[in-house]
């Protein structure tokens, strides 16, 4: 299962990640962070493909994506 990490304090709640996630698993949290924004987070991480599209579209470099390494050969 891939891992998607949000640096919550940096999130500005712009929703670009949420919009572009092909699996629709990024949602905005109910609480607000120190900057006053509802930060993004992933639900149903098991649906995540680790495509990193969310991260690619994040203007604030909030997101890191990790994936299991494929066995070679």
């Amino acid at each position, binding site marked *: 299962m*891939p*891992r998607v990490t949000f640096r919550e304090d*940096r999130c*500005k*709640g*712009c*929703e*670009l990640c949420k*919009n*572009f996630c092909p699996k629709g698993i990024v949602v905005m949290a109910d609480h607000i962070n120190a900057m006053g*924004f509802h930060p993004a987070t992933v639900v149903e991480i098991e649906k995540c493909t*680790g495509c*990193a*599209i969310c*991260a*690619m*579209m*994040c*203007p*604030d*470099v909030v*997101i*890191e*994506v*990790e*994936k*299991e*390494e494929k066995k070679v050969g």
Partner: protein
Amino acid sequence: MKKVFERPKSLKDMPFHYCPGCTHGIAHRLVAEVIDELQVFEKAIAVAPVGCSVFCYEYFDCDAYQASHGRAPAVATGIKRVLPDRVVFTYQGDGDLAAIGTGEIVHSAARGENFTVIFINNAIYAMTGGQMAPTTLLGQKTTTTPFGRDHKLNGSPVRMSEMLSVLDGTAYAARVSLHNPANVTRAKKAIKKAFEVQIAGLGFSIVEVLSSCPTNWGLPPLKALKWLEDNMLPYYPLGEFKKPAEVI
């Protein structure tokens, strides 16, 4: 676990001052990724403009200059002529590059100055409060075109990439956009090519990046990307306008 996406090394670990959803941030990251990938971090010198991205000198973790409004290409010329083996790039907005800095960008291109320009076209003067830029679309409302930009009064938006491509000194010119993942990927490729052209010593390279300004367009971030796609793309065709034979 392998990191498939992480913060590029060339981007200092600090928050951007940009508004929520402002794609200046994506452009920054792409440039930093390219610097990382080309392993030119130690040689890189950034020239920051005046505009919303004025503080980009803080974000890029390489040596940097802050240039006066529009003159980044002249500053870059001065740097690169002294240090021809460094990798020099400017990062400029459309007010900076296409208005006040017209002379500097045209003649840096004409001279074939061997540096790279990242040109953020967001169709507005963002930093100063949303005034019309030379790239503002016809009909677009800004704080100085309250009734929409009118060709009779303000002329028509300039297509800088096309114009600069006319010059012999321009080695590489491309227009890309940041409105969706596929285009972000293409944008990065173009930025990488531009840097490669510089590293190969082939002359002037520029990547025009269509970028959003939710704040001054008065739109939420997602709608801003949609507006970009619907309105800017038809007027500003994407693609490579010029590339040297040497580059694949």
